[in-house]
């Protein structure tokens, strides 16, 4: 499955998402709340667009010299007694960690939230081992795990689709006796997880940024679960996407500020930690520190027009502004990376065949591009995927394909276009009716089309199923005809006055 979360077709997933009214309301509410918090936090920072320029520069620099910085980082981890494994595929990463758990004879594995560990599906592999328990320690991930590993809806707020009552019911199975207050529910989890943390012998974390010149990793959380995951077990494995590198703590610090403001409207996450293997004399932290650096298809973006997607710092702001995500939530995408970032990343990591539809499920409104703290031109990359699919891979063989190709020919020739305009009015006549009282003024003065035969191509009835179409105008009433015959309006007196002044 890899990054796929479902083998159902895209439209089926969307249809399911649209049934979930609580989820839709929750996503819309979250987007509206984050809109206020995020813009406030960014305004407060001042010079927001210059900060974005800096963040973009940092990410592009790191990607440009990616092999060099990874080499430096690996060398510095090793110098401190740590171990680094470069995994080309998700399977290599998964097998490596599984082998390590077996070798260490670990029984209680604790994880802190990490997208890349979902990518390599480590939870399933480890749970399948005899005498090994795995527990997600992030509150939201814990809730999903206890609901039979339910799919996340959001990369920062994975449980947006669940309400407090559902969570209460789920926790009852674990012995919770309290009410549906989030504070009480969270308190219960604190106790439950604390017991587990105290016994944990193997910790798995992700990595927000890897610090090349120090061989340390930088993690941002609000709950503190990543820090406890790095404190208690004697063995820690860090799983990082290979692009999560920065030259030094200075660049990480800039990105930490950008990330927190963009993701949750905070200035910094509650815990922002730079961490590595236990040093001599310290009594806790990882004796054994392992870093697994994962490619898993990211190389396909390197050196191409899609490289900017590797700048991503996983803040989720693009999800929070996306009008499509607003209505279908994260599950509709069928990828562990939903929203605009997912539309760009999923076909790269998971292949065009699996995610063919995603780039088209977008109105190209560019809200994502505008909000991205590291200036990824998300909507442009979505459009570039379309160009790859149509021009290079020729993936569409439907009527839509034929129609659009024909439009391409028609709009490339003034003569053909003129004919088409004449035909349009006559051709649409059988499906049209005159403007009626109660119709919107300013749109249907020439009549409207509101019923089409079922046999009409999808590209036409896809529109008319939910909306009325203004009747194409007759040639004698169109703009070109009007323009040719119109008498220019006189410039206003003050305009003439200004022109006279300028001539002087």
């Amino acid at each position: 499955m890899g990054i796929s979360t479902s083998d159902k077709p895209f439209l089926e997933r969307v249809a399911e998402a649209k049934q979930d009214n609580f989820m839709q309301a929750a996503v819309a509410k979250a987007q509206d709340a984050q809109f206020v918090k995020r813009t406030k936090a960014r305004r407060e920072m001042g010079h927001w667009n210059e900060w974005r320029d800096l963040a973009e520069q940092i990410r592009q620099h790191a990607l440009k010299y990616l092999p060099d910085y990874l080499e430096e980082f690996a060398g510095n981890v090793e110098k401190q007694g740590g171990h680094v494994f470069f995994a080309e595929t998700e399977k290599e990463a998964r097998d490596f960690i599984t082998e390590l758990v077996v070798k260490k004879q670990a029984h209680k594995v604790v994880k802190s939230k990490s997208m890349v560990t979902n990518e390599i599906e480590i939870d399933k592999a480890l749970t399948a081992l005899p005498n090994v328990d795995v527990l997600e320690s992030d509150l939201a991930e814990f809730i999903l795990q206890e609901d039979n590993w339910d799919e996340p809806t959001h990369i920062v707020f994975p449980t947006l689709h669940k309400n407090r009552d559902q969570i209460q019911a789920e926790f009852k199975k674990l012995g919770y006796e309290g009410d549906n207050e989030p504070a009480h529910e969270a308190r219960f989890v604190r106790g439950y997880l604390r017991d587990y943390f105290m016994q944990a012998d193997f910790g798995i974390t992700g990595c927000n940024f890897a610090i090349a010149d120090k061989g340390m990793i930088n993690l941002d959380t609000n709950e503190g679960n990543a820090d406890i995951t790095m404190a208690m077990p004697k063995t820690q494995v860090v799983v990082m996407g290979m692009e999560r590198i920065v030259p030094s703590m200075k660049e990480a610090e800039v990105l930490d500020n950008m990330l927190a403001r963009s993701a949750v409207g905070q200035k910094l996450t509650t815990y922002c930690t730079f961490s590595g293997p236990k040093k001599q004399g310290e009594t806790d932290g990882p004796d054994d520190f392992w870093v697994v650096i994962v490619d898993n298809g990211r190389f396909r973006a390197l050196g191409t027009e899609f490289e900017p997607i590797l700048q991503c710092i996983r803040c989720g702001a693009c999800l929070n502004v996306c009008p499509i995500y607003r209505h279908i939530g994260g599950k509709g995408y069928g990828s562990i990376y939903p929203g605009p970032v997912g539309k760009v990343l999923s076909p790269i990591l998971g292949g065009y065949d699996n995610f063919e539809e995603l780039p088209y499920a977008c109105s190209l409104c560019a809200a994502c591009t505008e909000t991205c703290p590291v200036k990824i031109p998300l909507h442009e990359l979505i459009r570039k995927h379309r160009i790859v699919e149509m021009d290079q891979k020729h993936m569409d063989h439907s009527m839509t394909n034929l129609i659009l190709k024909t439009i391409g020919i028609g709009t490339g020739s003034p003569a053909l276009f003129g004919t088409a305009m004449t035909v349009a009015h006559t051709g649409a006549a059988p499906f049209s009716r005159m403007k009626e009282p109660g119709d919107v003024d300013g749109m249907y003065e020439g009549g409207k089309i509101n019923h089409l035969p079922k046999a009409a191509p999808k590209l036409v009835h896809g529109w008319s199923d939910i909306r009325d179409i203004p009747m194409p105008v007759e040639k004698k009433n169109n703009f070109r005809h009007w323009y040719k015959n119109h008498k220019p309006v006189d410039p206003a007196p003050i305009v003439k006055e200004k022109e006279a002044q300028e001539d002087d």
Partner: protein
Amino acid sequence: MVEVLERLGCETFMPEKQVCCGQPTYNSGYAKGSMKTFKNEIDALSSIDADYIVGPSGSCVFMIKEYEEILKNDPVYGPKAKEVANKIYEFSQFIYRVLGIVDCGAELDAKVTVHRSCHMTRLIGERTAPFVLLDHVKDMDRIPLKNVQLCCGFGGTFSAKHPELSGPMVDEKVQNIVDTNAEILIGTEQSCLMNIAGRMNRLGHPIKVMHIAEVLNHNVDPNRIKYLADTDEEVVPANGEGVF
């Protein structure tokens, strides 16, 4: 649009051979299939030695601006595309930023709300000019539209290809418009208006739609026309506060 521009002192020309900017096919992934359309449009627009090119829809204007990047390696059309891109403006942007006009002399005694098109605000980067111009229209009562930043769900062929996604988007937009109790919806982009009006009509909300050019051409008293320089107003930055 033509009448407004002429009243403000512009001499207008309409190149006969222009057809379409090519956005529907290009944004659908047919880059190769769009080249003929792009080149025809460039030829048409360059056929007249105009100082400026003005369009009534931000998305078409932006597509034409994009020709420069798309055709940068074309020895013939590259330079021509650049020239066209450098002199093209969206209608309200042109009036406010190039002509320096704040009041077009129009009057509209109505309660209105304004839909802000995505391509104009985010890609051209002009999010304030239409509001400045509309706020000078006499007797007009403009009600702010909730979640004005949200796309209406048009998105070109997206709206027809994915009605299951576009539908809820336009429904939410219509609801927010209805909630303002406005009599008229004003837009800067004909395609958004066609989408929103199409849905309003289907749902039975007969709110009148007007393009901003129609509003600025409504009941005009030429003596009310005012230049920014003759007021004590400050120029409003195109991108507002620049934080999104």
